[in-house]
């Protein structure tokens, strides 16, 4: 199959339309009848089939190119940090190292771990062999992200990515006095995001609530402790040690690079499901859900970020969160070319397609986190209503 050039380049919608979309998420998503949901599912399945059939050398070339950038930028960054003495080379070195970590985590790690390149048979692109430059063990990630988050997306109580358990990211989550500290907690999470991700699979809350003994946690934490230990050894032991007299500078540079990656990943990932206009679900709403209804939930539960190719690659194409949630195991670099078709399908079925610039989406997330630190689903007049249509939302 060959998509037209316009589609391949990711034809962008008109600016006017984009503005309007950003200002209001439009009418509340139409509830699909069972037959409509099935038809929606069939159309998306067909889209998936077309892309899957078209996969080939182009996709492998892309990911290898990004791997090349990541490796080179790591080598350049480390070189500058290790041999330089001036602040300029420190900034450049930390930046290059941060860039390599961003590419490694977002476009390479996240996507390869989804199995997007398993069809290539290349061990370097194998979801079960890949290791990445972050404290989260790949095997943990594949369980709670690929399985839990992508299967139970935005279902309260089942998707632990909704506010990462301790943040109140949507009004449907009950308020707790501790949420008053949410702005500080969110900032801390942003600065040390790799630790948040690494510890996410530990289910600390189960132990804190007393549902599980400490020994269960100790057992579960083993892969994380091992992986995080090697990461700390690498960034703050091994590389500083071989830098000899430059050790403090190298350790500091690694910290800056890690922090830069943390902030970037946090911003992109929080824009995926927490902006205004994204819907959450209650468990009883999704009982007996069909494949078509699952697709509809992925669409309504995700938000895109608009931007150019650089933004897409640096975000690991999570700027196409909607397409990613529909087809998590299709190579992410294909999302821009299928986005116009997904958007067209959404429009035809009266489904929302939440998209805006990074600034607007992230601004909306920050405003929401601040607002929800206080009790009640109070909404300021400027913000559009959250598109939640749950019978239980009043009790939240």
């Amino acid at each position, binding site marked *: 199959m060959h998509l037209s050039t316009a589609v391949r380049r990711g034809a962008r919608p008109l600016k006017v339309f984009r503005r309007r979309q950003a200002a209001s998420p439009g009418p509340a998503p139409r509830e699909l009848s069972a037959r409509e949901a099935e038809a929606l599912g069939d159309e998306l*399945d067909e889209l998936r*089939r077309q892309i*899957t059939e078209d*996969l*080939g*050398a*182009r*996709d*492998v*070339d892309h990911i290898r190119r990004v*791997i*090349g950038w990541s*490796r080179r930028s*790591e*080598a350049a960054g480390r070189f500058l940090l290790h041999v330089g003495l001036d602040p300029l080379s420190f900034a450049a070195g930390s930046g290059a190292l941060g860039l390599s970590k961003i590419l490694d985590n977002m476009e390479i790690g996240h996507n390869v771990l*989804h*199995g997007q390149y*398993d*069809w*290539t*048979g*290349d*061990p370097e692109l194998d*979801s*079960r062999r890949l*290791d990445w*430059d972050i404290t989260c063990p790949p095997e943990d990630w*594949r*369980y709670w992200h*690929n*399985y839990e988050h*992508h*299967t139970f997306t935005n279902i309260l109580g089942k998707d632990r990515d909704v506010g990462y358990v301790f943040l109140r990211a949507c009004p449907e989550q009950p308020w707790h006095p501790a949420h008053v500290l949410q702005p500080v907690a969110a900032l801390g999470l942003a600065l040390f995001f790799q630790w948040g991700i690494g510890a996410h699979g530990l289910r600390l809350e189960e132990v804190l609530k007393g549902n599980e003994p400490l020994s269960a946690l100790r057992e579960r934490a083993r892969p994380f402790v091992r992986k995080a230990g*090697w990461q700390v*050894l*690498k960034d703050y032991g*091994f590389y500083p040690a071989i830098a000899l007299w430059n050790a403090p500078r190298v350790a500091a540079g690694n910290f800056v690079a890690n922090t830069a990656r943390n902030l970037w990943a946090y911003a992109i990932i929080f824009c995926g499901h927490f902006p205004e206009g994204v819907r959450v679900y209650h468990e009883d709403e999704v009982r007996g859900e069909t*494949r078509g209804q*699952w697709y509809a939930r992925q669409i309504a539960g995700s938000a895109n970020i608009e931007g150019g190719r650089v933004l897409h690659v640096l975000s690991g194409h999570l700027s196409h969160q909607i397409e990613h949630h529909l*087809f*998590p*195991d299709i190579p992410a670099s294909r999302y821009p070319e299928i986005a116009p078709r997904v958007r067209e399908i959404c429009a035809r079925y009266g489904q929302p397609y939440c998209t805006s610039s990074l600034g607007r989406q992230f601004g909306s997330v920050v405003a929401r986190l601040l607002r929800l630190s206080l009790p009640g689903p109070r909404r300021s007049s400027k913000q559009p209503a959250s598109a939640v249509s749950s019978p239980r939302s009043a009790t939240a």
Partner: protein
Amino acid sequence: MDRREFMARWKGPVETAARRLLVYRQADYWLGEFAPARSLEELRAEVVRVDNEARDVKTFALRPNAHWRGFSAGQHVSVEVEIGGVRTQRVFSLSSAPSDPLLAITVKRMPGGRVSPWLHEQARPGHIVGLSPATGRFVLPSPLPPKLLLLSGGSGITPLMSILRDLDARDAVSDVVLVHHARAGDGVIFRDDLEAIAARRTGLRLAFCLSDGDGHGRFDGARLAELVPDFAERATFLCGPHGLMERAGQMWTRAGALSGLRRESFGLPASARPPGADASDRYERRIHLGRSGRSHLVDDKANLLDELERFGERLASGCRMGICQTCTCRKRRGVVRDLTTGKTSSDRDEEIQLCISAPQSDVELDL
């Protein structure tokens, strides 16, 4: 502690540390940039020369990297090439002698195939291919038998050529008969090389059975008995198309000489549905789990994940709808159908998702 002892002791831990510190992947990347044939862990080879051998048959001379551990004449390797981004393997017999400086595979172009047309059209000197270590038991016994018969058809001559070249290199062509079957129009693979060896070695006798019409120079038992009256006393190496192998096997059985016959078959397709079966029938397929050694008979209409769990197998799984890749595993051999797309996977060593794959033949999984 001498150097070798030191290496044996520290290589493993150092490698593990290099991997965990992500230094290893940096090294592998730069090695790939500057010396693509070399690799920290993969066995690869560089194509050095491509020669036309006969119609639709080419020989590729390969220089393997440091991971190559040698082979015995008659063995085969799996050659891996990347076609449309997908690493694809096919097994080929080596046609060179173990003492030759380069490896050689001799490949007949199979219409409708993937790897052989790619090799014929794309492979050029300088290309890098993946290799597996050599395997196979179709090798000369030790000590060498006094009398040998090498019996082949079509491209089945390749492992026999390796054996003959090995004997030649070892000065051990004492009493060897090579009987080769081919279609006249295709020409005889290795003809010049064979005749050169025959001219040098009085112990080698050649016989080519060429046919004009259909069939691969049909195997004719009476003619063979005439050409090689003492066939039953000879240690015989047989490699060729399915029909030839079968008829020769029957002849050796009748002569009560089956124990002296070594066979190497190639290109047998994985059996799909038995002939005459109605599509709505349910069949049971044997699923062999290679690592645990267990086998189960499962329904060919249902997905492998459900079926294997029915037998109490505890498998990694997640969404059960083909999206999360948790249940993905390596299929060693056999045919499975993707229940979402209807596509079949028949190659060896392909990754499949158990939750959306139904077996279409007996299947071996790497579980």
